């Protein structure tokens, strides 16, 4: 189990996370929804160790992650597919995958994992020697997912994987998410596309203005209410 308790994170004086607590069950897909600026990316970056929390704890199977360097967090089995993908633009697809496996030393295992990624994402195989910066948005997203998987994470964090993609590609990405989960990876997903997210998620949280305001299973709240709160926030929805 992955557990975040009472995390406070800030940019200078602005508190973006004001005491966030949530639990992600192993082997499940958990989704975090919320309007722009709610603090979803901040939470993901804090879990990955890019931002240091002011307070609170982040535990994976009981072991504390808060305060560790991003590299140590990767080695504990957590990988983030970042918002906007952030592929290495002037490296080939293959080199991007190798970078994802940076902490691993098992050459043979890395090579066989690259082959597995090519099998899962055939379009990456066709473009293995192409510079990542010249891939389409959808291909870059696949590459970002594959790169994160190269560290063999137990917990895969994904920050808006459907951002800016055509509906067909979005459906493909969600198929892959479900497939990865079936293969045993725990997934914690940030989404703006509430409709798609609620279809795959076992559990979801709503975040508004740096706080968790709802937690439950997809059936528990009517989809249009979730969508309203996820896009607009409670205040405007009520008022």
């Amino acid at each position, binding site marked *: 189990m992955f557990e975040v308790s009472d995390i406070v994170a800030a940019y200078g004086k602005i508190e973006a996370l004001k005491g966030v607590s949530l639990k992600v069950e192993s082997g499940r897909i958990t989704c975090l929804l919320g309007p722009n600026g709610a603090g979803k990316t901040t939470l993901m970056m804090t879990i990955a160790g890019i931002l240091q929390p002011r307070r609170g704890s982040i535990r994976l199977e009981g072991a504390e992650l808060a305060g560790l360097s991003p590299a140590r967090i990767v080695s504990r089995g957590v990988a983030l597919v970042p918002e906007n993908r*952030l592929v290495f633009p002037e490296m080939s697809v293959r080199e991007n995958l190798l970078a994802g496996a940076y902490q691993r030393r098992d050459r043979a295992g890395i090579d066989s994992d690259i082959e597995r990624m090519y099998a899962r994402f055939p379009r990456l195989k066709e473009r293995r020697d192409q510079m990542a*910066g010249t891939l389409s948005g959808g291909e870059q997203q696949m590459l970002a997912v594959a790169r994160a998987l190269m560290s063999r994470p137990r917990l895969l964090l994904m920050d808006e994987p459907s951002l800016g993609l055509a509906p067909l590609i979005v459906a493909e990405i969600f198929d892959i998410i479900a497939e990865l989960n079936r293969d045993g990876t725990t997934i914690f997903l940030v989404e703006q596309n509430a409709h798609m997210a609620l279809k795959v998620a076992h559990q979801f949280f709503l975040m508004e203005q740096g706080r968790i305001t709802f937690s439950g299973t997809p059936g528990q709240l009517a989809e249009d209410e979730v969508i309203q709160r996820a896009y607009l926030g409670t205040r405007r929805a009520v008022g």
Partner: protein
Amino acid sequence: MDLLDLIDAVQSVADGVLFGATYSLLGIGFTLIFGVMHKINLSYAAASIGAAYASLLVMSVVEAPAVLAFVAAAAAGGVIGGLVYLVGFRFIPLANPLATLMSTVGLLLLIDEIIVHATAGVPLSYPALFSDVIVQVGPFGLRGDLMFVFALGCVCMTLLLLLLYRTRLGLATRAVSQQATASLLCGISTTQVNVLTFVITGVVGGIAGAMTGAAIGMLSPLLSLPLTVKGLIVTVIGGLGSIPGAIIAGLIVGGLENAFQFFRGVSERDLYIMLLLFAFLVFRPGGIFAKSSGRD
């Protein structure tokens, strides 16, 4: 201009291109540090000359063949590079663009002052290799010491390219310079990459410093400022961040420098190099290999 003049001019440009390998190395150093840290390290050329001085110190203590001066300069360059990172970057607020500029200008002056203090400002002679060799190619004579400098420069560049494109450390270095946040997410320690980049560029700089000393036969604290400027010009002409650009630009600047010197005299030479810099900044700010920006 008669034939003899033409031969002399070509000869002079050829000498310049050979010496230009030094500028190429310095340009690569500036470019690599800029690549990973997005900062200009203004103390780089001074540190390179400092490393060459340090190699003289080693040579004065141990009785050794002249080639050892290059090894000693490389080692000293690596150590100085690490120190420059520690003093000029590690604890300096990187978010402030002026902070590291000032810290590295400070280091440039500090290194120069140390050299002046230690040598009383008197130039010291530097051992040259193959200075008695001259290879005749038709009407041209290629100086052995310059050819050695050029060959050594080529070896260094080849090794650097292999390091960058064929090793795990090179992959990490390129990752950090292309997408720092993503490289952290891949488990790459940016601090480690930064330190190693300073040490490796320091080694390269030390060799470039020794090459300078060997090619002109002496070392002087007056070398560091012009070398700093030449290194920066090479990075502008080659395109900041481009290694092939730095290599080519170094050779071009070396050749042009001698051409200007041949036709206009030594005191006018750097005027034209400076004008070239401005021409590039205005008409081709991305450098000779400026590529059309790819999609994002």
